[in-house]
Every structure is written in structure tokens, then in C-alpha cells.
């Protein structure tokens, strides 16, 4: 091997390593708590919900969404899903223990799939706990595709669509030190706002105190690695339209294995290919 060849090979190798370094993804943030601050969240006690839909109204007023007619009971006939203009939705369920109302909205996962799948970091898990959205979004809908709760929704009928979902009032109220509008509006304290740790303690306390009233499980404590919005219920969660097959692993962990392999392949593959190329070189006849 002469000098020029050596330098050439070295150059290709170095280029590979540099690119590997640049293109290799960084580590996922595996901690539930960022920089010492605790995540805030909402505990929803479905045994206390009376289906008044005050939360829907408060949400719409805070974010200038179309005002819902909360006197109209016909909306309960069908299980509704959140849309780009309705970020929090009260549904009615027929269960073993009679009629139960449950409010559905973005769960603000601790390690959210939408956040880690976003290629421009438009979806962001704030230090305070809410998952928010930014204008640099491309609208690729990767977040919507990955969301296990179907809550990241891109406005369909807009030439400049945004991701619309519950932001836990982060920009409108939390930054001013106020609590989310839905929690404030709830007349029965079915919604409780606090740090995630406090909410879990409170939820456990209620279960211990009234063991017959609740199923002994907090939905969102461990689902997909834990969420900032959590639920208490008198009936098994499947009866309230919740998915109970989500598992306890956070979804971003599912693709970390692949991401770790990327820099390795980026460095080893070119070297291997160059080696094979040299090895197959024919001598002059």
C-alpha cells in the first residue's frame, strides 16, 4: 500500500467516523424528572365525575376553540374522541356499577413517543410535565402515528395545520402560575392538580381508605412508562374505554436498540466493504 492509498483509506475511514458521530442519535432521556423539577399532572377520579362537561367549556374558552353546548346530552350517545377543536372530551360508559363518566385527553406521558419520534423537536416534554408543540413542525404526523392514546391530532382542514391537543394549559396558565382551566372549573373536584408524586400518594390514599369504592389500580402510573394524567375508577378500566394492553415499557425504548446500532454500522460497514473490495482485486494476468 503506497502513501496515497493509505491516505485515501484513512480519509474514507475518518469521514465515516465523523458522519457516524454526527448522524448517530443521542441518548434518550430516561429520567422521569428533568433537572430536579417534578412533573405536574392531573389525577382524574372517575367516581366523582358527574358528566357536567364544565371542563370541556373551560378548555374551549381558554384556547379560543368552538364553545360546546354543555346542556346537550345527546353527545353521550356515542363514544367521542378528541378532535382538533375538542381537546378534552367527557364520555359516558355503561358499566357493571352503573353509568360512569370519564374525561379523555392527552395523557402527557413521562417518556412520550410523540416527543422522541419528532425529528425537529417540535413536540416537547416540558420540565413542568406538559407535552407541547412548536411552530417548526413539518406536519409529518409521526407523533400521531406513534401515540398509543390517539391524542396527537393534526388539523386536517387548514393550509397551515398545527398539532392540536391538551397542553395542560402550559402556555396560557401554567407559565403564569395558575392551574389548568379544567381543574379549576370542575365542580366536584374530580380533577386534581399537583406533582405526579403527590397525585400518586393521594390516589393510593383514596384506594386504601375506600377499598370497596375503587379498583386497586391507578391508570397511568405505569402505563407506557407512566403518564402525567392518571385515573382512578370503580370499575375495571377496559369498561371505560381504556386500553389495558399497553404494557409498562416506555415506547421510545423500543427503538433505542436500533438507534444504538447506527453508529456501529456507520463505522464498521465502510471498513468491511473497503476490505472486501481490496480482497477481491485481481492480479494482472
Amino acid at each position: 500500500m503506497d502513501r496515497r492509498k493509505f491516505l485515501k483509506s484513512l480519509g474514507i475511514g475518518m469521514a465515516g467516523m465523523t458522519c457516524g458521530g454526527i448522524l448517530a442519535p443521542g441518548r434518550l432521556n430516561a429520567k422521569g424528572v428533568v433537572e430536579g423539577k417534578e412533573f405536574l399532572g392531573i389525577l382524574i377520579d372517575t367516581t366523582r365525575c358527574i358528566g357536567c362537561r364544565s371542563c370541556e367549556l373551560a378548555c374551549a374558552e381558554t384556547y379560543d376553540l368552538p364553545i360546546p353546548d354543555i346542556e346537550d346530552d345527546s353527545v353521550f350517545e356515542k363514544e367521542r374522541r378528541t378532535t382538533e377543536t375538542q381537546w378534552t372530551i367527557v364520555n359516558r360508559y355503561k358499566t357493571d356499577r352503573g353509568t360512569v363518566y370519564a374525561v379523555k385527553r392527552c395523557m402527557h406521558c413521562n417518556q412520550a413517543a410523540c416527543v422522541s419520534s419528532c425529528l425537529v423537536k417540535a413536540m416537547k416534554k416540558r420540565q413542568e410535565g406538559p407535552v407541547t408543540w412548536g411552530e417548526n413542525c413539518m406536519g409529518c404526523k409521526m407523533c400521531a402515528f406513534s401515540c398509543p392514546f390517539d391524542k396527537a391530532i393534526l388539523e386536517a382542514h387548514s393550509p397551515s395545520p398545527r398539532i392540536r391537543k391538551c397542553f395542560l394549559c402550559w402556555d396560557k396558565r401554567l407559565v403564569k402560575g395558575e392551574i389548568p382551566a379544567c381543574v379549576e372549573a370542575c365542580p366536584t373536584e374530580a380533577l386534581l392538580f399537583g406533582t405526579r408524586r403527590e397525585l400518586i400518594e393521594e390516589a393510593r390514599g383514596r384506594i386504601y381508605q375506600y377499598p370497596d369504592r375503587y379498583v386497586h389500580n391507578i391508570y397511568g402510573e405505569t402505563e407506557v412508562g407512566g403518564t402525567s394524567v392518571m385515573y382512578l375508577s370503580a370499575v375495571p378500566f377496559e369498561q371505560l374505554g381504556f386500553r389495558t394492553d399497553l404494557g409498562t415499557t416506555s415506547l421510545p425504548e423500543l427503538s433505542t436498540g436500533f438507534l444504538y446500532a447506527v453508529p456501529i454500522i456507520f463505522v464498521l460497514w465502510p471498513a468491511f466493504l473497503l476490505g472486501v473490495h481490496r480482497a477481491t482485486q485481481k492480479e494482472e494476468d
Partner: protein
Amino acid sequence: MRGKQASPEKRTLKDFITFIIAELKPRGKIFTPFNIISAPILALGIILIIYRLIYGLGTVVAEAPGFPWGIWIGFNVMVGVAFAGGAYVLTFVVYILRSEKYHPIIRATILNGFLAYVFYAGAILLDLGRWWNIVNPLIGNKFGVNSVLFLVAWHFLLYMIAEFLEFSPAFAEWLGLKRIRKILRSFTLAAVIFGITLSTLHQSGLGALVMMARPNIHPLWYTEFIPVLFFVSGIFGGISMVIFEGTISTRVFGYQLTTDFRRSYDDIVLGLAKTCAAVMFVYLFLKALVLIHGAHASLLATPMGYWYLTEVVGLTLIPCILYLRGFRDRNIKVIRIAAILAMAGIIINRCNYVFIAYKWFVPLSERYIPSWQEVVMALTIVFAHIWVFRWIVHRMAVYRKPPAWAVEQDRRGEKKALEVTL
């Protein structure tokens, strides 16, 4: 054949412009059945694309809450990239393993791969709600380095450049740029090595993309091995595309084929069929392993199970057997049927991950079914690819022999390389 090609090295700008204008004019018959079908679809599709880019996604896309991706991602992007896999597989065989046998089809395959990335990766733009922000992950308006999609986006861009470099000598020959061709030719090996590395990563990356949606993907399709399965199926999908494309091209562009090409073409197809069968066997083995390991065999007796068997047995195992038989009996016809079946299998496989086996529990009435506009636009992308491919093949040395000076240049280059080594 074409006097223009023999133009001297030094030309004025005016000559150059006249040359380009002359080349832009269509060649061959205009009213062919293919043109009569594709031209109106292209015209309508282009109007729809402009309309959609101005007025937003909701104006053309079927409304199905919970199904964010449709055929543009499932068919155009995912399938398009898998079918473009032939380019990196063949560059590996020809430039790394130095198999001269497949040299005659290498340029057509690279060109096809390059155009596939331009058009099918370009199809992402159609599906972006805020498409003007597509440059953000590239210019650093936040680098989402944790995202698999970030990796895929960068790889698409870099791979397009690598593919262009691999094909660029043909451009230089067309324009008669001898010195530039020599420089471009020297980039080929680096571009090939870089291209194969990128392909390995983003073919599997497209699989890793859907992994975070585990709760939404039917257990028969979800496995930790999705990236490996995507990588392996991209190999036989790509080779099947090469066989299929060759079938059509050898007829349409028959007038430019050299006698050498004609003589060796059957052997090339037989070799590809054998490779395909082997790769498909690996894929089926992995599929079986995943099925047994996941203990999902009981799900096979459900409607989704039958759909799974259609994909794995009907459109993977059967073409695998057909490839083997075609190879054994030297029967090109059987191999072509196998290629078409294998391609159908890839289409169904990719669409399964994006909208068919995705949220399988949603009843049919609420499922995503593409609108006619989406279908027209998806076809527009395919036809645009074919039109540009045809335009280039008619003008550049893709199937035909490169000009004599280029052959001489390569021969001298190889000789020099040997002298340096020895």
C-alpha cells in the same frame, strides 16, 4: 447514431443550449397505449398536487381519525424505497464483489434507484402538513437526534447524492464532458461504499420507524426484529423490481441493446432469481422464528391471521418456490411471475404496517380507505418516475454502450490503478 455526441470538447454556451433544447424534444412514438393512459393521470395529478400544497391536506385526503398515514407513506415511500433496494444490492455485487456478470444492468438499476428516491422520498412532501418546513431537520431548526425519522430523512438526502454520483458518469458522457467524467468516475467507489452503508441503515430504519407504535400494530406483525425484516425484504424486493423492470425495458428499449447484453441477459435473470430465492428463504426463516418465539400461532386462525398467511405464504413462500423452479428449469417466464408476486407481497407488507394491520381493532366503517385523489396522486408519482426514466434512457448510455472515449478512459484508469498497486 447521434452526431451531437461527437461534439468537440470546447463548445460555446450557444451550442450547449441548442443541444439541450434538441434533447428536450420527445423521441419515439407519442401515441403509445402507455402514454394515452398515463398522460391524463399525470396532468390531473399535477393539478391536484398544486391544489393540495396550497389548500392543505384535508382537501384531498380521506378523513379517517386515528389513521395519520395513508398510501403516500405506505405505498409511495415505504414500498418505493424497498423497490429501490436493487441499486445498492447490485452496486455491492458489481463494485465490491467485482462480479462482471451483472455489469450490463448496473446503470439502469442505479438510475432506477436514484429516480425512485427522488420521486418516492419526494412523495413525503405530499404528506407533510407543513411541507415548507421540510428543510428544518436539515438546516438545524432543531435537530431531533432521538428520532428514527431524523436519521431516515438525512439518509434519504445523502443517499440521493451518492446515487447521483454513481450515475453521473453517464451524464458527463451525454454532455461530452471528458475531463469531468474522469473526475466523477473516481468518486464511484466512495459513493458505492457510502451508499451501501446508508441503505443498510435506512432500509432497516423505515422498519424501526413503526416500532414505537407497538400498541397499534397487530401482534403477528410486531416484533423486535422489524428493522431486520425490513432490511432483508428490501433486498429481495429490490431484486424483484430489477427483474420486473428489465422485463419491460428490454422490450421498450430493445433497439439499443448490444448483442453482448442480449446474450448474457438470461443468465443475469437466472442469477438474480437464485439470489432472490436465497434471500427470501432467510426472510421466511426469520418470519417463522418470530412467529414461534412470539407464541402467536393461535392468532393465525383469525381473520387477521388469514391476511397474514396471504402475505407470508401466498406472496412470499410461493414466489420463493417459483424463483427456485424458474432457476432450475431456466424458465424466465416463471421467474417473471415470481417477481410480480414477490413485489405484491412487499406492497402488502409495507401497507400492513402503515394502515392495514395498524389499528386492526378499528371496524371497517371507520378505517382508512384512500380517496380517489390520493390514488391519482400516488399514480402520478409512479408515472413521473417512469417518464423521466424513459427520457434519460433514450438519451444517455444506460442500456446502450457508452461512447468509445469513455470506454477507453475506463480501461486506462483500471490499468493505472493496477500499476499503482503492483
